[in-house]
């Protein structure tokens, strides 16, 4: 087991190098000059401009710049934001809990709804419920996120006035940032209604972010269940006189979960991509919004470092999923 994990960690190295190259190259391919953006409306004279170019090393050859970046990364130094002058590392970890909170809520929502929906559809295959559910899933899957988000805002925040439009909590409340998770912090603060406010702010972004993974998980669960339900061991389970809920929910689902787990792992990548749009639309102060803002500001170190950290995150999640996979599928575990 340990050897397996170490082996997997070794394969991280080429991926890691690839990601550093891409994140380094990506921001430089975009048109626009970070120094000019930094100067803003006031502008700056040529002398100061050259001085800054030298200071940030933009006059060096690209390879030298990349080498500086890479050696920094390997020493755990991702550089400082041009804008805030704070280390990228610190900014990331200040904002990450917000994204994590949103993503966790979204994935929980997607799993909690997607798996039962897929199971019920498979058990009632071909019937009305199955068809209705699967066409809904197809719509959900092909929905443009920003359009869907705006629609939700118009209906639930605008017309119905049930949920707030943006942010993580009402401005009324103020408390310490203990864990970075608003749901927990608001509870810890003990302020009346703070928790409820945090929940209300979470609802819409979570639904929007969960939509695509939910559709994918439901469809995958359904097809995996259909396959498993025709297996011989399901007939054996029926021959024991077990109740359908136990047969479908335990004997079949346990086997169907093997491919579904993979899909859940893969949707974490989609989730982070979706977070960028969702956070921007809902002004959610997480790393998605931070990345978008930094790209506009041509904040090179932030974009480079942020992309790198996101990629590492996805790699770690995928490894975790593989380990989980072994836990569920005993055939893999013992090898």
């Amino acid at each position: 087991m340990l050897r397996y994990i170490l082996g997997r960690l070794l394969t991280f190295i080429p991926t890691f190098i690839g990601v550093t190259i891409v994140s380094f190259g990506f921001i430089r391919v975009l048109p626009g000059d970070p120094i000019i953006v930094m100067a803003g409306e006031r502008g700056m004279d040529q002398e100061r401009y050259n001085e800054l170019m030298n200071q940030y090393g933009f006059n060096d050859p690209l390879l030298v710049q990349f080498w500086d970046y890479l050696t920094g990364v390997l020493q755990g130094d991702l550089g400082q934001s041009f804008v805030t002058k704070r280390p990228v590392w610190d900014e990331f970890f200040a904002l990450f809990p917000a994204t994590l909170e949103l993503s966790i809520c979204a994935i929980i929502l997607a799993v909690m709804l997607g798996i039962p929906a897929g199971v019920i559809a498979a058990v009632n295959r071909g019937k009305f419920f199955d068809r209705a559910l699967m066409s809904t899933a197809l719509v959900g899957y092909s929905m443009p996120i920003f359009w869907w988000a705006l629609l939700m805002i118009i209906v639930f925040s605008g017309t119905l006035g049930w949920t707030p439009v943006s942010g993580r909590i009402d401005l009324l409340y103020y408390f310490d940032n203990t864990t970075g998770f608003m749901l927990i912090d608001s509870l810890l603060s003990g302020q009346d209604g703070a928790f409820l406010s945090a929940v209300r702010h979470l609802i819409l972004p979570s639904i929007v972010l969960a939509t695509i993974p939910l559709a994918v998980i439901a469809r995958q669960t359904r097809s995996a269940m259909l396959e498993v339900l025709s297996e011989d061991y399901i007939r054996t389970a029926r021959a024991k006189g077990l109740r359908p809920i136990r047969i479908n929910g335990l004997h079949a689902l346990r086997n169907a979960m093997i491919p579904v787990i993979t899909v859940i792992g893969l949707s974490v990548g989609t989730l982070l991509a979706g977070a960028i749009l969702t956070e921007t639309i809902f002004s959610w102060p997480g790393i998605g919004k931070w990345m978008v803002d930094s790209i506009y500001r041509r904040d090179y170190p932030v974009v480079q470092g942020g992309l790198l950290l996101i990629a590492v995150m996805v790699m770690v999640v995928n490894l975790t999923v593989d380990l989980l996979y072994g836990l569920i599928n005993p055939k893999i575990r013992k090898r």
Partner: protein
Amino acid sequence: MSLLRIRNLSVDFATAGGAFRAVDKVDVDVAEGELMAIVGESGSGKSVSMLAAMGLLPWTATVTADEMSFDGTDLRRISGRQRRKLIGKEMSMIFQEPMSSLNPCFTVGFQIKEALRQHLDMDRKERHRRAVELLEMVGLPAPEKRLASFPHQLSGGMNQRVMIAMAIACKPRLLIADEPTTALDVTIQAQILDLLTDLQKETGMGLILITHDMGVVAETAERVCVHYAGQKVEDQKVEDLFTTPHHPYSAALLAALPERATERRLPTIPGVVPGQFDRPQGCLFSPRCKYANETCHKVEPPVQPDDLGRARCHYPLYSPLEKPAEEAHA
């Protein structure tokens, strides 16, 4: 008094090529303590007819029967809940493929104890004790350790023993063993058969043994039903069938036994079992029957009386009234 009594059972499958009759007007009678064998070539509907009795066919199957009862309970009108009380407890079944019939995600112990938990009022400790006892009964070495194994860690023979342990866990009154040995190698086959017949003697349950091996029938069963293309073509005591088979198909099956061959080459039955699209008119066996005449090819044969083995044949062999077929046979 039969334990399982079935009259005129037919099973149709809805397939892409239209309806397909896998079981055609079959009668079954098994008494408590009786060992009955069903023989027939592959595809003759042996498994499907028994799955119908258990209520385990997929939804594509349509089951019709004039009567289908277990110990007086009408299996046709039984509710799902009532059936779940019956199967796995009163009547249980061992399936053809031991490797794929156990759930790969759960330990053997879990799967055996699950059957106990479903039907018997036992606590955790008792279930464990009984599971160990069952594995001992079916002859698995180191039962305590085996309970923690997953099916893929066991051999086919061991898995089949586990399946048997699971099926007899709640002391059923009727056990249906569907080719319990075909997936196993020859040395294991004999062991499993001995195990089943011993268990049957010990517990006095009814046992239906499905097989396509006449040799197995000769060694184990009291009564035998011969199935052909979904129909039961003969139903006799084993000794009687071996001395006086009334249906030409049974006779041909017996002639194909190695120990009965008179020539150096084994006689085989020419042709194959008719499938969905080449079902003949009249007698289903007529295209392969060496005694068949015009009538056989045109008219569906009647079911002969008991003393003629309920043979589904116009001209049963060894018939006391008419001699032509028998003479031809001799």
